[in-house]
């Protein structure tokens, strides 16, 4: 209840324009922010750096094929409306999740792509974590590689960012531990051999060696929530999108690495 009060209060402050963006203040000083890339071993970094060895590039290749393939009863391909992704999708992933007016809520990139399938292609939505959706998302996100993360500034989005921050700070699960306890307070430590890192969402979808496949940011978040021994959220749940929003706000200005490789 305290949490809700905080959100209400903060939203009020935002609306009042008293504190322009109080919740986007980073807990880790900007100069100390580091991508998960910098915590990896030389071999894993090399795998990400070389497009001819990065397995995530297979997803980009499949995504490109899907981009040009007609789907749904509208008989249109993504390219049919958006033409060359290299031009039209440049920078898009750097500002997602974004606000969808029709739904009055934020949508992440996977959800946006599925909205295009249902709204514009008259096709079935693609299932979360299945290769087709991951490949399309990776292909779209790869068009922003190297570009700085620039969160969507829509005012309606700010309460969702605030909720995401709250979730990040909130202790939960059998361990009564919060994301912040690991990723803000102990990012320089290791857990059972793995670097904890700062939880920067710079490389998604990622090729994770542990998964032996591509996977979304939501899958990564669900892994950490399982680690907290807390009740998990379903794919697409607004709470996960709120966490994504906060993580992107926290990583403002850091370059997109998609498709990143992570251990």
């Amino acid at each position, binding site marked *: 209840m305290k949490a809700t009060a905080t959100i209400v209060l903060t939203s009020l402050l935002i609306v009042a324009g008293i504190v322009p963006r109080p919740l986007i203040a980073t807990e880790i000083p900007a100069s100390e922010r580091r991508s998960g890339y910098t915590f990896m071993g030389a071999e894993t970094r090399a795998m990400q750096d070389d497009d001819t060895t990065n397995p995530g590039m297979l997803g980009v290749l499949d995504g490109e*094929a899907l981009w040009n393939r007609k789907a749904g009863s509208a008989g249109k391909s993504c390219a049919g409306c958006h033409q060359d992704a290299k031009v039209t999708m440049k920078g898009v992933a750097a500002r997602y999740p974004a606000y969808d007016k029709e739904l009055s809520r934020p949508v992440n990139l996977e959800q946006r792509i599925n909205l295009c399938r249902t709204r514009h292609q008259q096709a079935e939505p693609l299932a979360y974590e299945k290769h*087709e959706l991951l490949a399309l998302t990776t292909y779209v996100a790869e068009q922003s590689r190297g570009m700085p993360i620039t969160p969507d500034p829509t005012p309606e989005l700010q309460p969702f960012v605030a909720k995401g921050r709250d979730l990040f700070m909130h202790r939960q699960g059998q361990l009564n531990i919060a994301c912040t306890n690991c990723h803000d307070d102990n990012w320089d430590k290791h857990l059972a051999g793995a670097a904890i890192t700062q939880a920067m969402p710079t490389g998604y979808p990622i090729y994770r060696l542990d998964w032996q496949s591509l996977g979304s940011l939501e899958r990564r978040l669900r892994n950490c929530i399982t680690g907290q021994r807390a009740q998990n959220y379903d794919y697409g749940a607004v709470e996960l999108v709120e966490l994504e929003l906060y993580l992107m706000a926290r990583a403002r200005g850091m370059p997109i690495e998609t498709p990143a490789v992570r251990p």
Partner: protein
Amino acid sequence: MTAALINVPKKAKAGDIIEIKALTSHVMETGYRHTATGEVIPRDIITSFTCRFEGDEVFRADFFPATAANPFISFFTNASKSGKFDFEWIGDNGFSQTASASITVE
């Protein structure tokens, strides 16, 4: 969907030793894993990779359950003349995938 990412230099001088890299999509299910309910997930791997130049074998490899998912392989060959490299992956359950890449040798 399956995709293969082949890296062959587009051009080389006669006698150059060139590196060829090949990456292909495959789960490489070992046959040693179990589902949450305890059933064995059946083996599903690529067992062989062959590279031919103008029909002649240049390089071949046997893969095993120990080959990482989305198999990566790199090897060398002597660029003698212009022509086409053909790549072939064969595996369990009738898996077969091919790709090709051309080189111009000056």
